[in-house]
Structures are given as C-alpha cells and as structure tokens.
C-alpha cells in the first residue's frame, strides 16, 4: 500500500486568543506543505476535518476556506464525525489516493473553541450525542456513565483514573506545542472539582484551539517519510442506551481489527500509541479495546507505569487530548502528525493512532511504520 506521509505540521494547542480559525488552518496547511518540500501546486485536493466551526465561530464551508490558501484552488471538502473528524478525513484522503484519483493531497484538521463560554462550548459538544434520546446529557456526563460501569464491573478505582491524567501531563512536558506543560499529581486529579460524577475536572480534556495537517502522497518524497500501512473504521449505536456493552467500545475493536489485518501487525508490535483520552476512562477503554490489556486491567497497568517510558508501551507521548489539548477537529490529524514526526526522527519503527467520535459511536485506527531505506 503506497501511502506516504510526505509532510506534517502541528500548531500550538491552547487558548489562542490572538489566532483565528483561519490563522490556525493556514499555519498548519502551509507548514505541512513546507515540510514536504513540494510545490504548493502539487496539492491536488484538500480534506478538512472540523466538528463545529458553524456553532463555535459561525463559519462553515471550510473546504473553500482552505482551498483559498492556494493560488490554484484545489478541490476541497470538509469531513465531520465529531471528535473523530480528523481520523475520518484521513480515511477519505487515503481512499482518494488508493483509488488513483489523486497522487498528493492535504489533510488539515482544526477547531477554534475558546471564543465562546465554557458553558456554550459544552452545549456545542453535546451535539455529538444523540439529541433525540440523550437530551440533557453532556459529553462528560456520558463518559461518567461509562466510568461508573467500568468501576462497578472491574473494580477500576479513582486512583486508576487519576494515574492516566498525571501520566499524560508528564508526557506533555516533552511537547512544546502542548496546551499544558505542567506536571500534576495523582492526588491533585483526585481532588479537582467535580464535573460529572465520578469524573473530575482533571479527568477531562480541555477546550482548545489548534490545528494539524499532513501531506499524503502515493509516492515517497524523501527517505525519512513514514508510511501508513493500516487503517480501519468502526461504528456503533450513537445512543449509549442501545450499546451491547458499556465497558468497551465495539467501534474501536472493529477499527483495530481492520487495521491489524491490513498491516499484518498485532497489538504487541507497537511500542508507542496515541489514543483518544478525551476523558481518563476513555484511555482505559481504548487500551482494553485495542488489545493492549485484558478487560479491566488497563487501570492497574497504568498505575504500575506500564503505559509510560520504560513500560510495556508508551501511550500518548504528546500528552494526549488531556494535556496536549483537544481542538476536536484537529485531534485525529494531530495524532498521526505527531507519530509521523517520532518515526521520522527514528525514535520508533511502528506506531498506532486511535481516534474516537462522541462517546464511542465512531472510531478510527491508523498504523504507521517508518519508511524503509531506499
């Protein structure tokens, strides 16, 4: 499968009051093209990932916005799948390349979330849930139900959840683009303000502004280009009430199996992963659904430092959604862009990215491998 990551770029993540949605999209897009060292005219199409610019910023038609950054106005479209928008935009771009329609495309994801109040943003994000049958829920509220079920069925503890957040904040110290470059303790997480019981403030990813972009090509542009060797997408009921399980995401399991099968790799082949930790419980669900740990064991493994440097697998070296930040449309693209950089630098040979939409209705998994020497 010829899918090369020719270039990648990630903006700062955070409360970026001095930068607009347009600024972020442009910085990431042109940054990825510059890193690819290709003429801008080589971009044959653009796939824009975004969840809610219409509600956050009153701006729609983002495909045309990004196309306008280029003098040749490449064809462009927006892809939306809540917090999985980035992963889905990558899938759309990959299919376009593999079909032979295009040789080189740009995928850019962005969200500008901090121009409105936290309460208004909470309302916008709740649109990722089923507005027909989950009226009155919030994004943290739905994950709180999942956390409660996991705690009840497997004995997952407050300390297990807190260990996820503390670990990801520690990892973010190495990421200059991260929203929070501040170490926090397990105790601080456990004592932070309650959001939706049992989830506390420091269990939750923040509201963030930011963008990320990658240039995908059917041809290897430089020797250090990583490859995408596997991908998969799974879906499940939008409503939690109609799920077969409240302690796992079937969508993640389906996406992972497709990606493992396509790449010929197994979960133990990956020394590093970016997984979707929008809430601490989400990282534990991800690690169990991807097969890294048996059901119910991810919490104790995290507390035992099995998901950090020196452990079984390094999970969320960027700081994850929790500490790097979660501009929702950007997140899926950022995960792949960040891992591509680690592979390009020779830090790892293989990596996995896992992106989730809403409370598990959509999941996308990508597998990256370092390019072989030519």
């Amino acid at each position, binding site marked *: 499968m010829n899918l090369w990551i020719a270039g990648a770029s990630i903006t700062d993540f955070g409360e970026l009051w001095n930068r607009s949605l347009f600024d972020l999209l442009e910085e990431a897009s042109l940054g990825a093209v510059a890193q690819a060292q290709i003429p801008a005219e080589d971009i044959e199409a653009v796939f824009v990932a975004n969840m809610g610019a219409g509600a956050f910023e009153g701006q729609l038609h983002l495909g045309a916005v990004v196309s306008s950054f280029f003098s040749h106005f490449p064809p462009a479209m927006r892809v939306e799948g809540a917090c999985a928008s980035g992963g889905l935009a990558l899938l759309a771009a990959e299919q376009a390349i593999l079909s032979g329609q295009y040789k080189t495309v740009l995928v850019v994801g962005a969200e500008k979330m901090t121009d409105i109040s936290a309460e208004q943003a909470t309302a916008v994000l709740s649109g990722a849930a089923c507005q027909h049958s989950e*009226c*009155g829920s919030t994004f943290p509220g739905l994950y709180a*139900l999942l956390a409660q079920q996991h705690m009840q069925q497997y004995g997952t503890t407050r300390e297990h959840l807190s260990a996820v957040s503390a670990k990801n904040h520690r990892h973010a110290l190495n990421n200059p683009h991260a929203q929070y470059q501040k170490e926090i303790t397990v105790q601080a997480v456990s004592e932070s303000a309650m959001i939706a019981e049992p989830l506390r403030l420091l269990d939750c990813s923040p509201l963030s502004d930011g963008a990320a972009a990658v240039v995908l090509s059917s041809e290897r542009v430089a020797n250090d280009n990583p490859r995408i060797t596997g991908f998969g997408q799974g879906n499940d009921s939008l409503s939690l009430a109609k799920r077969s399980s409240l302690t796992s995401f079937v969508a993640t399991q389906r996406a992972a199996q497709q990606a493992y099968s396509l790449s010929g790799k197994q979960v133990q082949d990956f020394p590093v992963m970016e997984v979707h930790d929008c809430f601490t419980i989400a990282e534990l669900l991800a690690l169990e659904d991807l097969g890294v740990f048996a059901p119910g064991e991810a919490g104790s493994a995290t507390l035992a430092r099995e998901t950090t440097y020196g452990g079984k697998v390094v999970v969320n070296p960027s700081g994850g959604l929790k500490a790097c930040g979660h501009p929702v449309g950007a997140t899926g693209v950022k995960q792949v862009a960040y891992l591509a950089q680690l592979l390009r630098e020779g830090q790892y040979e293989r990596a996995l990215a896992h992106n989730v939409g809403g409370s598990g209705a959509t999941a996308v998994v990508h597998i990256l491998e370092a390019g072989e020497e030519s």
Partner: protein
Amino acid sequence: MNHALSAPRYWRDRREWSRWLGRKGTVVASTLIHVAPPELAYGAPYPYVLVDFGSEKRSFLGTGHTSFLVGEIVECVWRRMGTPDATGIIPYGIKVQRLSPEEPVAPVESVDTLESEDESHRRSTR
C-alpha cells in the same frame, strides 16, 4: 437542548412522550452532572440516569433526588426541563423519579399508541 424549544419539535415529540410516561424500569448507571449547558444550569447539579425498561434501555434526567443507585426502580414522569428562551416556550419533557416503596415494581409494557392529552396529563401529575 436549544433545539427542543420550538413549537414544531414539541408537536412531533408528543408521541414519544406518551410512549414513555408511566413506564417503570431499573437503574443501570447514573451520574450527577455538575457542569451543565446554559439552559440546564439553573438545576445543576442534576442526575442523569440510564434505565433498563426490560425491552429497551434509555437515559433520562432524574428528578426528586440527586443520587440514583444501580438497581433502583424508577418511573417516567412529566417535568420541566429547563429555562424558557426568547420564544417564551417553557420546556417540558420526560424525567425519571424513584418509585416509592409501596408502589408495584413490575415493569410496565410500552404504550405505543398516542395517548390523549388528558391521559398524559393525568399520568404525569399523579
């Protein structure tokens, strides 16, 4: 939630409300939401409860208590859902409340036919 505050949606949702009013089920999971959307902030923290009604599950806001325990029996009731917006419509909808100990706990079958306004009102106010 803001989309609930429209006359056409109220009209469409009547059938759904009638189907749920009076049904009893068992709490599967619950949370207490402390940070709420603007239109629900007046009632925060408020409970949000996932209920097994036997043939299907569904989540609702809770009323009457702040905590709902797994295994408790609850009943669907008609309650105010939030604060009115500029249209002046007062949002109402289905919530669940604990069944008092003396009431029967057997699940009530689904009512799929549209009930009269009088019947809905009678059930909601008992």
